[in-house]
C-alpha cells in the first residue's frame, strides 16, 4: 500500500502542461517520499508518547507540589514551636500561642477507624451476596443505587446525620450502653462516614469479584467444596489484594471527609475517651477556623500545619496499605 501511495505522489508531481525541463526539478524519487512520510509518522509517534509522559509527570508532581506548598506555608509555626509539642501536646489555645494537635489527630483516627469497622464487614458481605447468591437483576439494580449514594452531596449527608443519626445516638444507642450522650459524638460521625464510604468500597469489591475467573469457582465446586468454602478459599483468597486496596481507599476517603462529619461530631477540643464523646477531626478544624486565620497571629500557619498533618497521615496510611497488599500478594 505504501508503494502505491508513493506512485500516486509521483504522478501528482508530474503535470502534463509544465515544460519538460521543469519536470526534472519537481520529481522526487520514491525513496525520498518514503523518507518524508516515515519521519512524519515517527515524529507524531514520539510526540504522542512524550505528551502522555508529560501528563503523567503532572500527576506525579502534583502531590509533591501540594506537600511542598503546605510545608512552606506552615513554616512560621514549626520554626517557632517544637514539632514534638505541636503533635503530641493536648493544649489548644491559639490566642496564647498554644497549638497542640493531639486531640485533633486522635479524633480523626477514632472517627475513621470506627466508621471503617462499621462499613468493612457490611460492604464485604453485601458484595459476596450480590455476586454469588443474588439473582442477576439485583446486581444490575444495585448499580444505580450505589451511584446515587456516591453522588449525594456531603452536606445532605450532614443534614441527614443531624436529623436522624444524632437523635438515634442520643436516645437509643447511648442508653443501650449505659452511657449518656447528646448525640453529637464520634459514633454519630462514624455512622455518617460509614454510609458515605460504602459506595466506594462496595464498587471496588464488586469489581474485584468480577475479575476473579468463573472457572476457578467452578473448579472448586466440582471438587466437592460447598458454596461457602468456595467463596472463602477461592474468591476471597484471589480477591484479597483488591479488597484490601478497597479498604485503603475507603480509609482515605473517610479521613478527609469534612462537612458531613463537622455537622454531627460536636466540635469540642478534647481527647475522646469513648465513642459517645464529642470530637474535633483535623478537616473540621481547618474548615471551621478558616475565618479566624487573619485575626490571630500564626493561626494561618497553624491551620496549614493541620492540613500538612492530614496530608502526611494519608500518605502514611496509603503506604501501610500498600505494604499489606504487597505482603498478601506474596501469600
Amino acid at each position, binding site marked *: 500500500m505504501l508503494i502505491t501511495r508513493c506512485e500516486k505522489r509521483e504522478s501528482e508531481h508530474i503535470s502534463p502542461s509544465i515544460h519538460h525541463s521543469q519536470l526534472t526539478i519537481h520529481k522526487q524519487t520514491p525513496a525520498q517520499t518514503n523518507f518524508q512520510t516515515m519521519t512524519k509518522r515517527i515524529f507524531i509517534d514520539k510526540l504522542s508518547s512524550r505528551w502522555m509522559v508529560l501528563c503523567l509527570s503532572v500527576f506525579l508532581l502534583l502531590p509533591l507540589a501540594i506537600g511542598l506548598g503546605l510545608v512552606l506555608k506552615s513554616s512560621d509555626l514549626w520554626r517557632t514551636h517544637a514539632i514534638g509539642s505541636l503533635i503530641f501536646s493536648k493544649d489548644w489555645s491559639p*490566642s496564647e500561642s498554644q497549638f497542640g494537635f493531639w486531640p485533633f489527630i486522635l479524633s480523626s483516627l477514632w472517627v475513621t477507624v470506627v466508621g471503617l469497622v462499621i462499613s468493612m464487614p457490611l460492604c464485604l458481605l453485601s458484595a459476596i451476596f450480590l455476586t454469588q447468591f443474588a439473582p442477576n437483576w439485583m446486581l444490575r439494580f444495585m448499580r444505580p443505587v450505589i451511584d446515587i449514594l456516591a453522588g449525594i452531596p456531603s452536606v445532605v449527608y450532614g443534614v441527614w446525620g443531624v436529623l436522624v443519626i444524632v437523635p438515634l445516638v442520643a436516645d437509643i444507642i447511648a442508653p443501650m450502653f449505659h452511657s449518656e450522650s447528646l448525640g453529637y459524638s464520634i459514633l454519630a460521625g462514624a455512622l455518617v462516614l460509614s454510609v458515605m464510604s460504602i459506595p466506594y468500597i462496595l464498587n471496588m469489591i464488586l469489581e474485584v469479584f468480577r475479575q476473579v475467573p468463573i472457572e476457578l469457582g467452578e473448579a472448586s465446586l466440582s471438587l466437592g467444596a460447598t458454596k461457602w468454602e468456595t467463596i472463602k478459599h477461592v474468591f476471597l483468597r484471589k480477591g484479597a489484594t483488591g479488597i484490601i486496596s478497597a479498604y485503603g481507599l475507603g480509609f482515605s476517603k473517610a479521613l478527609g471527609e469534612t462537612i458531613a462529619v463537622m455537622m454531627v461530631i460536636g466540635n469540642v477540643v478534647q481527647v475522646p475517651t469513648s465513642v459517645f464523646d464529642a470530637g474535633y477531626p483535623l478537616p473540621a478544624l481547618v474548615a471551621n*477556623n478558616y475565618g479566624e486565620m487573619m485575626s490571630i497571629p500564626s493561626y494561618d500557619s497553624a491551620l496549614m500545619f493541620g492540613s500538612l498533618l492530614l496530608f502526611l497521615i494519608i500518605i502514611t496510611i496509603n503506604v501501610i496499605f500498600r505494604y499489606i497488599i504487597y505482603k498478601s500478594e506474596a501469600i
Partner: protein
Amino acid sequence: MKTNKIFLAISTLILLASCGRSGDTSSSKETNQKQVSISFSGAFALYPLAQKWAEAYNKTHPEVRFDIQAGGAGKGLTDALSGAVDVGMFSRAITDAEKSKGTWYIALCKDAVIPTINPANPYINTIRERGITKDQFKAIFVDQSVKRWEDLLSIKGGQGAKIDVFTRSDASGAADSWASFFGKKQENLKGLGMNGDPGVSDAVKRDKNSIGYNNTLFLFDIRTGKQIPGIEAVPIDVNGNGKIDEDEKSYADLNTFLKAVNDGKYPSPPARDLYFITKGKPAKKEVLDFFNWVLTDGQQLVQSAGYVPLPQDAINEQLNKLK
C-alpha cells in the same frame, strides 16, 4: 454519520451564541451603564440587613449587583483581606492585630447577642423570674463549674437536668461578642460547637436542657416582632439582685428590646456595633457611594429591619472617614 456531524455543529453554534448573549445583558438600551457587582461575605448578624439594603439601593441604582453570603464574621474578614470579596460583614470589635493587616471599616448600626434556652426547660419559670447573672453565665460557658440546672438555680432535689451548652464552631462575631461579656474570647467558650447561627438555634430548639446564644434576628421574628416559638431569651440579671426588675424585662418584643439596647439597659457587650470592612479604603467608587447611602438614606431602614441605629455624631464620624 453526516447528520450526526451537522447536529453537533448546530448545537455547538447554539451554545456559543447563548454564551455571547448572557454576557451582553449589562449593556442597557439608552445609557452606557456598566453593571458593577459588589460582593459581601461575613457575619450572620448583618446578613438580613445587607439584603434589605441591597434591595432598597437597587431601586435607585439598578446597575449595581449585590452578591451577599453569610459564613461568620471571621470568614468575612479573611475574605475581605484576601481580596475574595469586596466588603466583609463584621459583628464584633476589630482587634489591633486585624487593624495592622490593613483593615478599613465603617460602623453601621448596633445589634445584640442574646443568650437562649428552650421554653420546655423544667425550670423555665424560675429562670424567667430570676434571670441569670454575668458570673453565672461565665460559670456555665467558660469554667463549666456549674453542670446542672438545679445547681445553677440552687434548687434542691429535681431530676438532675444537665446543662447542655451549645456554642459556635465557626469563626463567629456573635461568639466573640458573647465571650467578651465576661472578658473572654470565643475559644474559651466550652460546649458543643454548631455551625452557624441557625445551627445553634436548631440545637437549642431540639434539646430542652440546652443553653446557647444567638443574634437578635435569629431569635425574634422581624414580621411579628415576637420571639420565634421553640426558643426563648434568657433574661440577663444585670444588677445581680436575683430577680428580673422592670428595666431588665425587655424581651417581650423586638421594639422594646432594641430600645433597651439603645438606652444601654442591655449590656454592651454582648450588644455590639456592626461593621463593613474592606482592605484599605475602598478603591471602587460604587462601594464608596453605597457606603455613603448606607450612612444617610439607609439608616431609615435600620430600625424597621430590627437593628439599633447609631447616634448622629457617630454617623458623622463615619461619613468623615468616607471623604
